[in-house]
């Protein structure tokens, strides 16, 4: 497949709505040299594979200054069959194998996860410190809320909101407490597959031993990792849902009722892990048939992961159901949304890059006229809020579950009090 090297830098051409928001890739947008694009990184893989370059500090910097957001892959696969994101992930895996990766800061968090089961190096026993006293866990529940490291230690407001919404809907649920471990996402994204598999097995062993039907996640990263990456290494039978899917269902069935008006103008940021990357690989057991020299086809056609099966509508449905809330879209949305800048170990290894990317996204949000930016991922939350603070933007940020909670009738002020109290 020809590597045209350019389409990956832009959102799908037919979706370009302005010069300002035409680009797809934070890495090439900020670092400019061609190898910082999806196509450029495929060239790096080719150079490494053919021995034209060796692992080096320069190579490592370029390979890891990528959020693995997958936007390049969506644009590429509009017409082609190249898999830029998969090649980038394999390139990292190769660098780890050759001793050329990951970045030192990423290695630090991997070691922390190995030691205390979370990349933040926080005590494992404090994983549940956020849990409000009035929330009751049900050890026999068929629904498990997998909180994730970031919501447990850094974005507790998301965990609190999720738990309170479940309570409001009368859903019996459980949390793994000291048996919940890092999902492995931040480790997998660095290319350290061996360590990742250790966490995958630990989590699946526990969940499968408890007879759980459904696991829900408020963290897009954990959700994507369970949904898309785990099955590549080990199959499981329980259902996985992000809280936006679960809460949308609860709203549809009337178990949750949004009654309180929230008179704000909101725009929604699609997290990469909940959007384009949350698309499962589909099994394909077909044949490659040579029709004629140089031309072969897959029979039946091999499914392409194009980003079209991400979770796009549930969060929008929820926002549109909140009384008084005005919803406006950014230019780059859904499968071609611009990344927040935090993913794949970038926030820890290259905080300045993460922040610059967040500021680009925040400007796009501001240009909609919205006063509030909403998303559904703790990584996006942290990075976008850092970006808002750094840029001085006149935007408020909420996780979508916080808005649900407010619209259920809990005053925002009260929410803040609760957050303070438990943190």
């Amino acid at each position, binding site marked *: 497949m020809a590597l045209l090297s350019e389409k990956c830098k832009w959102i799908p*051409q037919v979706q370009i709505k302005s010069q300002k928001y035409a680009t797809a890739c934070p890495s090439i947008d900020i670092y400019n040299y061609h190898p910082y694009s999806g196509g450029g990184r495929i060239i790096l893989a080719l150079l490494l594979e053919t021995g034209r370059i060796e692992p080096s500090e320069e190579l490592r910097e370029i390979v890891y200054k990528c959020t693995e957001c997958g936007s390049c892959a969506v644009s590429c696969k509009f017409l082609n069959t190249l898999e830029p994101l998969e090649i980038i992930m394999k390139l990292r895996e190769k660098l780890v194998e050759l001793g050329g990766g990951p970045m030192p800061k990423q290695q630090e968090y991997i070691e922390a996860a190995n030691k205390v089961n979370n990349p933040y190096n926080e005590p494992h026993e404090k994983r549940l410190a956020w849990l409000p006293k009035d929330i009751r866990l049900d050890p026999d529940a068929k629904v498990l809320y997998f909180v994730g490291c970031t919501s447990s230690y850094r974005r507790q407001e998301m965990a609190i909101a999720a738990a309170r919404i479940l309570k409001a809907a009368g859903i019996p649920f459980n949390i793994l407490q000291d048996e919940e471990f890092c999902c492995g996402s931040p480790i997998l994204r660095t290319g350290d597959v061996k360590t990742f598999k250790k966490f995958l097995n630990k989590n699946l062993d526990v969940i499968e031993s408890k007879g759980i039907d459904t696991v829900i996640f408020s963290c897009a990263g954990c959700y994507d990792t369970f949904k898309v990456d785990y099955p590549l290494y080990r199959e499981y039978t329980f259902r996985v849902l992000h809280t936006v899917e679960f809460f949308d269902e609860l709203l549809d069935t009337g178990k949750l009722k949004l009654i309180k008006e929230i008179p704000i103008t909101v725009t929604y940021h699609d997290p990469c892990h909940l959007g384009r990357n949350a698309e499962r690989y589909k099994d394909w057991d077909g044949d490659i048939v040579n029709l004629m020299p140089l*031309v072969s086809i897959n029979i039946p056609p091999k499914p392409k992961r194009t980003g079209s099966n991400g979770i796009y509508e549930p969060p929008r449905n929820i926002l549109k159901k909140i009384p008084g809330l005005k919803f406006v879209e950014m230019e780059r949305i859904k499968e071609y949304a611009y990344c927040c800048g935090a993913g794949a170990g970038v926030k820890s290894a290259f905080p300045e890059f993460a922040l610059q990317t967040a500021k680009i996204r925040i400007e796009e949000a501001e240009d909609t006229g919205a006063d509030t930016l909403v998303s559904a991922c703790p990584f996006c939350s942290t990075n976008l809020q850092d970006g808002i603070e750094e840029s001085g933007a006149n935007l408020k940020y909420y996780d979508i579950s916080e808005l649900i909670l407010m619209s259920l009738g809990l005053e925002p002020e009260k929410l803040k009090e609760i957050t303070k109290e438990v943190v």
Partner: protein
Amino acid sequence: MVLEKEILKKFQDIVGSKNVNDGEVITNAYSYNWCMEYVNYMEDKEPIPFSPIPKAVILPSSTEEVQEVVKLCNKYRIQFKAQSTGLGPWNQPSTENSIILDLRRMNKIIKIDDKNLYAVVEPYVSGAQLQVEAMKYDLTVHMPGAGPQVSPLASATSMNGPGFTSPHTGHSARNVLGVEWVLPNGEVLKLGSAGLKNHSDWYNGDGPGPSLRGIMRGWAGAKSGIGVFTKVAVKLFPYPCSTEFKLQGYSPNYNFDIPDFMRLYVMDCGSYKYLKKVILRIEEEEISFMCSHLSGYGLTAIFSHSVESMMDKMPIASLKTPLVVLIAARTKYEFNYKQKVMEILLDELNLKNIIGTKYTPNSIFYAEALRSNLGLHGFIVTGGFQSAKGQCDTVKTCLRTTKKSIPLKKKYIKKGVIGNDFGEGVWMTSYESGHYFHVESITLFDQTDEESVKGMGEFMEDNYQFDLVKHLGAPFFVEGDRMHNMFGPYMMNYHKWLRKIKKAFDPNEIADSGFYISAKSEN
């Protein structure tokens, strides 16, 4: 070849240290480009997709910085190769003594003049970017077949530039107005009205005195071999229909709300002879937004998003000599008129439109037609293609080329080194409502298969000889000394004049001539 530290420092002083990179990884990555492998093979080199590695990559942000970099290149006798959106081997250095000027930081739309119908852009504005901004004024821009992701500046100043919308938007050579040009010695030359002392503006490419547009680009451009173009004014055209552009669904299966006044016609002309009559007659009426001949095989590709999805389009694949006409209008009256004309023409020419009867394309086709994305469908079959030929001529010559080239192409198809399009795989479009025509022989090959790469190189080489022997015109990839020396003697010794131009503008050979012509005398 490593850049001396002292020189590197001087480049850094001009553009800032982070905008110069001489690292092994960056420079090696810039040595890759699409189609480099068969170009290498044609030049008796290993058929790999890499050119010589540049000594450094430099990212200037302004004309002044480009000037300073070029002057420094002159001082130290280092060659430069400028690139913008960077598609194709023409962007590659031809010697180990070259640096690359990657112009991606020069990405501003300077001006859209909706009254006088032109826009002024820097090198790294893409066609799609300019188009969406022009659409805000109900205007559009010409984009080459290479697609909306490439630079209009590069196409207008340095490349060839036929496009699917050429009946309406012309040819890159004809659309270029004022130009800002950093000459190979670092001086700035402004062409046409952009260079006026008082009240300068960009509306005209020629001023008093001889036109320099021909010297700047001629037929197919100098591919940075005669300097660096830092700003260009290009013509804008009325957007052919409503600019409301609504897509629903997800990539790649978008549903497009087809504008009210658009209609597609695909007709089988049955023979090249009849196609000639039909295309001239239709274009005489000046109603088409697109008017292209593709082989049945090529036609299935522009309606498909994967090789598998081509398989259910046999009714169009079996058309013998298809012609695609897209009409579009901004008002009901205009649309009714165009439809009526087409009705009369179909009747007069005894043709049937298969659209809506034998075949109905997905709505995304119309979106891609409006956004000039159809050329990229050429990659879906074998993953790689390149065009042999590339004539700009009368319809008669274009079709003679097409017909006469079939046996040669079939020879290579039989060897199994290029894709089997029955030898008929061409794309032909009219320019400016049939005033002249363009044809190129789309040739499918596999860049990852060495035999296919070599076969493609040999096919290209044979094509050049064939074009000369059979008097089929000059292909658009006649570039570099060897090719110019081959074609020049058959064409009024133009290569001697071109060489004089190169010598006059670049006596020190600082602008990399690998895809242009060198100043040195012909041996």
